[in-house]
């Protein structure tokens, strides 16, 4: 067995060493590009998922969202609940929000969207909206008649929102009138404008809790409480922990809140990825098959000679499989280098998606899966033509 492998390796090595360098390099490059294709799209999908997750956590939901019990519109006794949640180990911050649909009026323009009443200090402990102010400042604890507004809602003078709510040119210091659902109207001065790249957040506005609570007649109540956990990625565990500490309201993870949108987007991406992967692998199979087929057909006589002098058929087949394994290994290595280059470029110049900049995320499992699938198709594509040629009758092979 070992002798057979030694002979097969010897023949494979000599054929690669003294065979056509041009064919070798061409095959290597095709394998490398197939590898890039196998890794690239999944890394973009992972990047989209990661961007969406971080956008959801940083701007929309925190890690967990506590909502009123079923049948209730608001969470009551928010202060006590907030303190209770913050005492649970692993909870880094909470931010109660009152949300309401309102209509904004500004210089003859109006836009329907959401207004959130927040405690600025609490909000800072959960979301990162305060870090994304592009003009003006974030809210402060004592503010009463001030508002901060998303960049899309504030808009640009003369530009319509293309279906999104926009006031077309609100500036810091301007006054905006807000009509609440109960018909009450209030005027707020714009303190700042933020841009998070999350459409839902950038089309909304925030003010402090008091004015919203007063208008809606709420006291120590909230529509939802956003919860920030110490570590991301363990939302389900923290959700269970909240229940185990006696939280009786509904608790959702950010994934549950965002499920519909992300799932649909990912499903579409996965279909594209599956097609792309399949096409890439078929290309790899066809290329390797053709290369080895031409190689074995050209060496049909040599294969016959080797059999005639007593070299076992399996040794000859193995020598071709080893050549293919070598090409696949080198191709994967070149592919890794090329992928690293593409990933580096896209990390410096990220793709801009509606949810924010997408940085490619290469997962080790994707790389391993790509290498494994390349090897499997390579071995199959190398084995079949070698096997077909090596089983030919010796005299037929030699006398051709």
């Amino acid at each position, binding site marked *: 067995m070992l002798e*057979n492998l030694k002979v097969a390796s010897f023949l494979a090595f000599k054929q690669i060493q003294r065979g056509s360098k041009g064919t070798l390099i061409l095959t290597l490059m095709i394998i490398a590009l197939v590898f890039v294709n196998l890794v690239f799209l999944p890394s973009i999908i992972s990047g989209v998922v990661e961007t969406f997750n971080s956008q959801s956590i940083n701007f929309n939901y925190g890690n967990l969202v506590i909502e009123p019990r079923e049948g209730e519109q608001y969470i009551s006794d928010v202060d006590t609940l907030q303190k209770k949640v913050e005492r649970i180990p692993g909870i880094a911050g909470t931010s109660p929000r009152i949300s309401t649909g309102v209509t904004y009026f500004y210089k003859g323009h109006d836009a329907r969207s959401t207004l959130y009443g927040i405690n600025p200090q609490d909000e800072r402990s959960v979301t990162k909206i305060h870090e994304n102010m592009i003009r003006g400042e974030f809210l402060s604890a004592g503010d009463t008649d001030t508002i901060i507004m998303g960049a899309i809602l504030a808009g640009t003078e003369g530009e319509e929102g293309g279906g999104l709510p926009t006031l077309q040119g609100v500036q810091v210091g301007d006054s905006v009138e807000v009509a609440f659902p109960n018909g009450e109207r209030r005027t707020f001065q714009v303190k700042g404008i933020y841009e998070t790249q999350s459409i839902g957040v950038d089309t909304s506005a925030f003010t402090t809790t008091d004015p919203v609570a007063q208008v809606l007649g709420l006291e120590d109540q909230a529509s939802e409480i956003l919860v920030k956990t110490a570590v991301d990625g363990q939302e389900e565990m923290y959700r269970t922990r909240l229940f185990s500490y006696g939280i009786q309201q509904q608790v959702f993870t950010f994934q549950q809140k965002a499920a519909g949108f992300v799932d649909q987007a990912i499903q579409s991406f996965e279909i594209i990825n599956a097609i792309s992967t399949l096409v890439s692998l078929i290309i790899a199979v066809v290329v390797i098959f053709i290369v080895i087929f031409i190689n074995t057909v050209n060496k049909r006589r040599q294969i016959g000679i080797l059999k005639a002098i*007593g070299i*076992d058929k399996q040794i000859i087949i193995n020598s071709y499989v080893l050549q293919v394994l070598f090409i696949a290994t080198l191709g994967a290595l070149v592919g890794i280098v090329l992928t690293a280059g593409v990933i580096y470029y896209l990390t410096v110049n990220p793709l801009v998606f509606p949810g924010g900049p997408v940085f490619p995320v290469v997962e080790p499992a994707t790389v391993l899966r790509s290498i494994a699938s390349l090897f499997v198709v390579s071995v199959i594509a190398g084995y079949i033509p070698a096997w077909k040629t090596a089983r030919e009758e010796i*005299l037929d092979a030699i006398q051709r």
Partner: protein
Amino acid sequence: MIVAEEITRVYRMGKVEVRALRGVSFTIADGEFVGITGASGSGKSTLLHILGLLDRPTSGRVLIDDRDVQRLSDRQQTLFRLKRLGYVFQDYALIPELTAIENVIITSLARGVSEKEYLGRGAEVLREVGLGGRTNHRQSELSGGEQQRVAIARAIVNKPSILLADEPCANLDSETSKSILDLFKQLNEDLHQTIVMVSHEKWHERYFCRIIDLKDGRINSMRECNVNR
């Protein structure tokens, strides 16, 4: 010892049946240098292919050292060729990617011989055939005579019990042919090597102990001719 019993070989070429051998029987003793002669199409090469286990007879059997070699499986026949036979082809049949010594040692490698031993033996055999200075040359860098010497070195490197040669001088000039035949003669006389060689050159006959002459797939004559050796 080789015993051939009533060997026939029938080919089918489309609807035509070609009877290459029509019942050939003979015995070749160990250490004999036997020439198989005959006109083109007489069945010489077919017979050698069957003796070399490169082809199977339609009927009859071949016994080599009392072993019915036709009963061996393909794999067993491959092993038999590796361990017991040496084969020299008319057109050398070297592997172009390998150097002279690599062509010679490839069968030793497959036999599991140690690296030190096969490299030593490979170099020694190449020296014996007069190619001591050409061990690392590839086929394209060797003359026809040199290539045939490499092929002979490959055939004898493992000291096979039988050396089969299919018109080994067909592509060589008479001087190179003589040196190849002298080499065979030396192997036969010095090492008591059994050699079966196909030839259609009259002047080769003086090298053979015995001649099996074929005609139309049958033995035409069988004669001793070592008087001239």
